[in-house]
């Protein structure tokens, strides 16, 4: 390959090396940006979910069925059923024995599950002769289908077709629709399986642990170093077993062999010596003795294979379970244990070889496909075992004709099992003792960003309660894979993460061919080698998905050869080859759940992607996949990144980085951020927590949710009336479509103090702007009424609104009703109005009555709208549909258009939230020399402590954008590549259009008319209206409802409750000595109650209204009664105590 002339020129005149020039591109940089949209076009925004689910429907489900493809009757194996094929059909629903194809939107509106039948071809025996029969297309269950996956009707549709299906083309898919609600299976983070992790435990001991996972079993093997001796810890043993005993039990009887297996370095021998000594002191020299010793330590000695000894089977099946034992040959396990020991000792000798559990390369992400396949496998097996069970029962009962299996396959189990798991989020898999909650969550449709954010979210493996800081900290290995900004605040901070823009999560790849390939590339099989040879200096162990495959004498050559094969497409693009110099290992991984990202390959620092390639891409001749296929771009996972030197841009030699050592070049620096943080302009100029706050707030912003937002039936929907596209955009915004579904408005902001109603981040708003539609929003709420069926033809009914003979409504609150008894769309509906005039039969159980119900047999069970008094709300839509139980459900969507009011929450895109402090007339607002009046005024004190420089740049950038008529960009780290406008250029534009370079204008006071004594920083900033609105929160009560039991005021706004005077408030009053106030608050305003107390026995009596005397039922007289007041809760307590045989007595004294 020749060096392009441009580079020559660059080399000749070396610029002085500086810190800045690390990011400085070479003379003619290739505009690589176009790769990003190309990537997203091919893969979509939520490619990992869809890929994973596709893998399940195409391969995973097949593997599962194949692995369990034969079931047979227990007492007669010749009666069998064999699954010969399995496939997932198109989404459909069975209505009255008719199969109808369904679309996702239909399911959303009618509360159905968007699922497709799983069908199998079977071979089974019938009759006495057990003749094999074949049957095709047997239904074994319905599988909820992920939107936009292969099985989905939306797959590969263009915009017009999607529109016809009622879908929003910008909706990314990747979620399920179960019973009408959209559910996402969140990405689950896990520690990687089948890998050795060297760590220290809580007591500071060095441990090597492996979590093995095979199809049959999951086990955890831990080897600890305790007081210089090394032990094996396994749940199956009551006590730790000395590791030498284990080695002996596996047939490695000679100590020398063990030492050789670990390595010949005398330091290893020294560390191993105490363990060998311990073993010797136990007088264990042979395999027999070792096994015997271990047998005594087995947790449940009764069970298991008695013949060969319990411990041997544990060693074979549980101990590092993923390492196979072929024909009772434990050698592989011995080698594996040897490697574990060696790594432990390395760690002891050299502390920096410890593994980091938080290192992203040691993590695996479990996606919906894997989770569903776990569930499906479990359900499938259950279904089969149930069939076997039934068969056995049948054949026990009727010896005559054994029924055939095809009758016994019941599809309900899988259907309901899958549906239940996804709709509740509880993943219970008995085989692996897995009980996880909250795996799936309702997809938030609060804003477009919120739903995108859900799709990229990763839920943590640990409990959130742990106070540890380690897993919460930002890991350097997250670079480019996980978004550094997007994490929630509070308990899940740092644990819940989000994928970055370009991240891809791998799916499983077949292992067999890869293993063979490795062998043919010179990997030597270990079974032929002695311990001595294994650890020969210069040769590296080759680990394949955690298994030891063999060793290689020329590791670098091998790795290069493998990589070359990958680049040329001979092996899967997601196979990672990682040379670990420290551990003398080559790790080859093809397992699923690794995070990786695409990078441009560079040969000695020269990008393989050239301008000609980019031109082809722009012309549409080349797609992203072509770049992969031609070996211009490759995917690197976190581990392999360690072998690479990745430059941001092509550049010449630097003081510390030589150009020739660069192996890869980033596609775009902005891709280290995720989707949600990508909409922040100039995030790299902000203080980092501000970006994190914005990530949380961007999800609460009102705006447009989807193109089909007005046809959706969400239970709560907030829409902005005039949503705009941000004036200061980023490339990410364009990539994800936020410019089409914006959630905010460009407000002209003046940064100044005004009126004193702007302290503590409050903002002052211009009334005329609000009049003209700024911040106006629509809240739509869904109210569902079910028309119940009670059987026997008895059901609720919807009655006409009752009118008198003149046609005047009998009840005013029925004015919103149409003649059919359901609110009419477009009608204004107010608090306490009826929206469905439903009546229920008085007597539900009318068995045998038969006769038709008359009017008088019904009682009103009206659906009454509870709104805010004085607000005008409108019935938007009424939808009627029958649900899965054939019941009529009436959905009324009620719309409320609101204009901003004092107390509504607003925020810019820089984590600067504030409530509206006051609304001021336009004439009182300051105005500029050009007659521009700001829409809102923000207090400058918001800046110094927040350090949101990005917001300032957004302001001047927006202002420049307005004056020159071009959208300005503020992509993260985009200045060198031209994806963000530089402040200098912005300032020049401002000057050109007669503004001050710093964005400060000369303003006149609107109240007094004279100029303000400062130049005011003024310009447009994109403001978001957040969902928190005063109207939904304001609450006050004088007196109102009380709880039945205690007669105290109810709690909470929804029940019109009182405001609690709690302990701390009470303490204040006590300290202040306000005794009368305490008395009033705690008794008079709460639950005062008059009781009759017997002065003699101290118990409560009662007042006899007939005799007009009080009476003590204990003393059987009314002589010593006294009246007193106490809280009703107190009286209740006395009575409850009495019920428990405790006598509370009141001792009264004269007051």
């Amino acid at each position, binding site marked *: 390959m020749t060096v392009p002339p441009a580079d020559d020129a660059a080399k000749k005149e070396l610029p002085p090396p500086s810190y800045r020039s690390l990011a400085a591109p070479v003379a003619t940089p290739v505009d690589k940006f176009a790769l990003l949209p190309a990537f997203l076009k091919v893969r979509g925004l939520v490619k990992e979910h869809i890929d994973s689910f596709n893998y399940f429907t195409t391969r995973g489900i097949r593997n599962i069925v194949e692995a369990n493809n034969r079931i047979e009757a227990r007492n007669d194996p010749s009666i069998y059923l064999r699954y010969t094929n399995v496939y997932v059909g198109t989404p459909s629903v069975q209505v009255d024995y008719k199969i109808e194809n369904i679309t996702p939107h239909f399911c959303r509106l009618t509360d159905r599950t968007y699922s497709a039948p799983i069908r199998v071809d079977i071979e089974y025996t019938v009759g006495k002769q057990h003749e094999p029969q074949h049957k095709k297309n047997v239904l074994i269950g319905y599988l909820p289908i992920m939107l936009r996956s292969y099985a989905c009707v939306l797959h590969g549709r263009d915009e017009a077709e999607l529109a016809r299906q009622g879908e929003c083309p910008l909706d990314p898919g990747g979620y399920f629709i179960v019973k009408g609600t959209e559910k996402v299976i969140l990405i689950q983070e896990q520690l990687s399986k089948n890998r050795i992790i060297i760590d220290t435990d809580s007591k500071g001991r060095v441990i090597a642990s492996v979590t093995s996972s095979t199809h049959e079993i999951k086990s955890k093997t831990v080897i600890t170093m305790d007081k210089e001796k090394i032990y094996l810890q396994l749940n199956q043993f009551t006590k730790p077993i000395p590791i030498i005993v284990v080695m002996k039990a596996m047939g490695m009887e000679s100590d020398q062999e063990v030492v050789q297996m670990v390595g010949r370095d005398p330091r290893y021998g020294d560390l191993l010596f105490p363990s060998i000594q311990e073993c010797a002191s136990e007088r264990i020299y042979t395999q027999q003795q070792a096994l015997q010793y271990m047998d005594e330590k087995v947790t449940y000695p009764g069970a298991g294979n008695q013949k060969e000894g319990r411990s041997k089977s544990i060693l074979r099946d549980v101990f590092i379970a993923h390492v196979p034992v072929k024909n009772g040959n434990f050698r592989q396990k011995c080698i594996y244990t040897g490697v574990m020991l060696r790594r432990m000792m390395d760690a002891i000798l050299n502390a920096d070889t410890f593994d980091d559990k938080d290192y992203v390369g040691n993590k695996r992400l479990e996606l919906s496909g894997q989770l569903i396949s776990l569930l499906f496998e479990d359900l499938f097996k259950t279904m089969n075992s149930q069939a076997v069970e039934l068969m056995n029962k049948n054949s026990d009962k009727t010896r005559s004709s054994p029924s055939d299996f095809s009758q016994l396959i019941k599809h309900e189990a899988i259907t309901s099992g899958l549906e239940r798991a996804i709709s509740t989020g509880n993943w219970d898999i008995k085989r692996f003792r897995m009980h996880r909650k909250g795996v799936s969550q309702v997809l938030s449709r609060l804003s477009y960003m919120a739903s995108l954010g859900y799709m990229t979210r990763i839920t943590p493996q640990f409990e959130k309660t742990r106070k540890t800081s380690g897993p919460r900290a930002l890991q350097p290995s997250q670079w480019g894979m996980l978004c550094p900004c997007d994490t929630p605040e509070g308990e899940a901070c740092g644990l819940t993460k989000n994928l970055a823009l370009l991240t891809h999560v791998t799916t499983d790849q077949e292992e067999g061919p890869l293993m063979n390939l490795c062998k043919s590339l010179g990997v030597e099989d270990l079974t032929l080698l002695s311990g001595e040879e294994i650890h020969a200096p210069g040769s590296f162990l080759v680990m394949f998905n955690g298994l030891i495959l063999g060793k290689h004498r020329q590791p670098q050559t091998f790795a290069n050869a493998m990589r070359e094969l990958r680049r040329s497409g001979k092996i899967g693009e997601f196979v990672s080859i990682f040379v670990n110099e420290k551990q003398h290992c080559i790790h080859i991984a093809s397992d699923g759940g690794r995070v990786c990202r695409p990078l441009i390959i560079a040969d000695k620092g020269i990008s393989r992607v050239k301008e000609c390639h980019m031109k082809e891409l722009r012309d549409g001749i080349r797609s992203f996949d072509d770049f992969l296929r031609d070996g211009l771009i490759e995917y690197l996972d976190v581990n392999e990144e360690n072998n690479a030197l990745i430059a941001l841009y092509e550049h010449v030699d630097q003081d510390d980085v030589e150009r020739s050592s660069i192996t890869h070049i980033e596609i775009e620096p902005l891709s280290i951020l995720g989707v949600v943080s990508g909409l922040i302009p100039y995030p790299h100029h902000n203080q980092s927590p501000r970006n994190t706050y914005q990530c949380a707030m961007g999800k609460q912003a009102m705006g447009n949710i989807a193109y089909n937002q007005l046809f959706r039936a969400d239970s709560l929907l907030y829409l902005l009336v005039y949503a705009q596209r941000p004036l200061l955009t980023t490339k990410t915004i364009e990539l994800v479509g936020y410019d089409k579904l914006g959630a905010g408005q460009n407000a002209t902001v003046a940064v100044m103090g005004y009126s004193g109603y702007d302290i503590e981040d409050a903002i002052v708003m211009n009334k005329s702007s609000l009049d003209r539609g700024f911040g106006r929003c629509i809240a739509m709420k869904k109210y569902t009424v079910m028309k119940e069926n009670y059987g026997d033809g008895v059901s609720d009914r919807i009655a006409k609104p009752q009118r008198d003979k003149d046609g005047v409504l009998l009840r005013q609150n029925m004015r919103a009703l149409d003649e059919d008894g359901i609110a009419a769309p477009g009608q204004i509906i107010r608090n306490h109005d009826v929206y469905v005039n439903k009546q229920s039969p008085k007597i539900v159980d009318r068995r045998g009555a038969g006769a038709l119900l008359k009017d008088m047999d019904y009682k009103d069970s009206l659906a009454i709208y509870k709104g805010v008094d004085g607000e005008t709300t409108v019935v938007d839509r009424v939808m009627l549909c029958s649900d899965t139980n054939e019941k009529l459900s009436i959905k009324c969507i009620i719309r409320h258009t609101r204009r901003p009011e004092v107390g509504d929450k607003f925020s810019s895109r820089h984590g600067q939230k504030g409530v509206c402090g006051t609304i001021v007339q336009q004439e009182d607002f300051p105005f500029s020399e050009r007659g521009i009046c700001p829409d809102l005024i923000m207090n400058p004190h918001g800046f110094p402590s927040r350090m949101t420089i990005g917001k300032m740049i957004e302001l001047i950038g927006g202002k420049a954008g307005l004056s020159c008529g071009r959208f300005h960009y503020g992509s993260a780290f985009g200045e060198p590549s031209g994806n963000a406008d530089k402040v200098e250029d912005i300032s020049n534009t401002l000057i050109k259009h007669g503004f001050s370079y710093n964005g400060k204008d000369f303003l006149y006071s609107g*109240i007094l*008319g004279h100029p303000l004594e400062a130049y005011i920083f003024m310009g447009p900033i994109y403001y978001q209206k957040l969902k928190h609105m005063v109207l939904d929160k304001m609450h006050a009560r004088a007196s109102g409802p009380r709880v039945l039991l205690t007669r105290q005021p109810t709690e909470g706004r929804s029940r019109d409750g009182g405001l609690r005077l709690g302990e701390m408030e009470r303490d204040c009053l006590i300290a202040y000595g306000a005794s009368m106030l305490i008395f009033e608050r705690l008794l008079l305003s709460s639950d005062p109650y008059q009781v009759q107390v017997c002065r003699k026995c101290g118990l409560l009596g009662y007042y006899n209204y007939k005799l007009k005397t009080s009476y003590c039922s204990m003393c059987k007289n009314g002589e010593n009664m006294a009246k007193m007041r106490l809280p009703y809760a107190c009286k209740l307590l006395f009575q409850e105590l009495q019920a428990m045989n405790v006598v509370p007595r009141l001792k009264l004294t004269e007051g």
Partner: protein
Amino acid sequence: MPKKGTKSKKAVDDVPDQQENKLPDYLELQRTRVVCNADAPIHTQGFQYSGAFAAMGVDNSVSVEKFCKNFKIDIKRLTEDDMEFDMIGVDASIANAFRRILIAEVPTMAIEKIFMADNTSVIADEVLSHRLGLIPLDADPRLFDYISENDVPNERNTIVFKLHVSCEKGSQRITVKSGELEWLPEGSQLSMASPAQSGDKQKTFTSFSQSQKEILEKPLGVKFKDITIARLGPGQAIELEAHAVKGVGKVHAKWSPVATAWYRMLPEVVILEQIEGEEAEELVKKCPVNVFDIEDLGNGGKRAVVAKPRACTLCRECVMGPCGEKIQLRRVRDHFIYTIESTGALPPEVLFTEAVKILEEKCERVISELS
């Protein structure tokens, strides 16, 4: 011809004449100019107190004679819907009063009530109504009365418009423009759905005693016919009646007769020290609105002069950098460049006279209250 920028104060024609006793230059500057320094403007408020300079024998009071002598209005530009004029010789508070009245208190007609008969478009009823309300109407508000809550809508206080558009099934999407609002001079056509008095003449939502055509000289309508109200897809329709009433901008911005009205003080750019040669050229290039010009001094010498100070947008470029010291940006405190952008109901000059009338009324009210 603008005067050449020389050292010290430049004479501006409209500086009010002094008494015999003159103020010292620096005070005179403070009194009559706002100085816009690079960091912040100073002397923004001026001297309000009449006796501020009494000790120096200078009278700072406001008097009618002085006002009459100095006050001047100079119209620079006048079109159908906007105008620019200079208002010279008043205090900022008075100029501002006119601005405030123009924005908030000069009445216009605007759609206030919508009777929605049918709306199957994607736009919600409330939003559609809001949009209709903001459409500027071509109706002289002086010909109408205010309507109060108990008033019956009649031809003197209500204008009725009808909007009835539908998009045929199978046709293209259509855009509903404001021009499709149809004026109903006879009043509402919708009958009240109140069956209380059956047999009566159809009762509508207005009670016009005569057609508005008879009392108005020209037909009413909307000012701009191309404002998008809504878009209709095939099969959708809008049918509604809109009632416009008189109101003021204080209540809702839709009644504001101006898009905006504002003023700026007359810029004055003063070159304090001669700027010559390279520096002069630099300065000329710096100013984005070409305030400066080059004057040839002969024998190749060049000097910067202020050519069009009025154009200065106060970007402060000229006062930054090396020669910044030599330039002072000022604003003349009693010279206002006033701009009124009318929304169309009344021409801008009429709006201004209306504003003056309103201020007059207010003054009269104060006087009558006081006496």
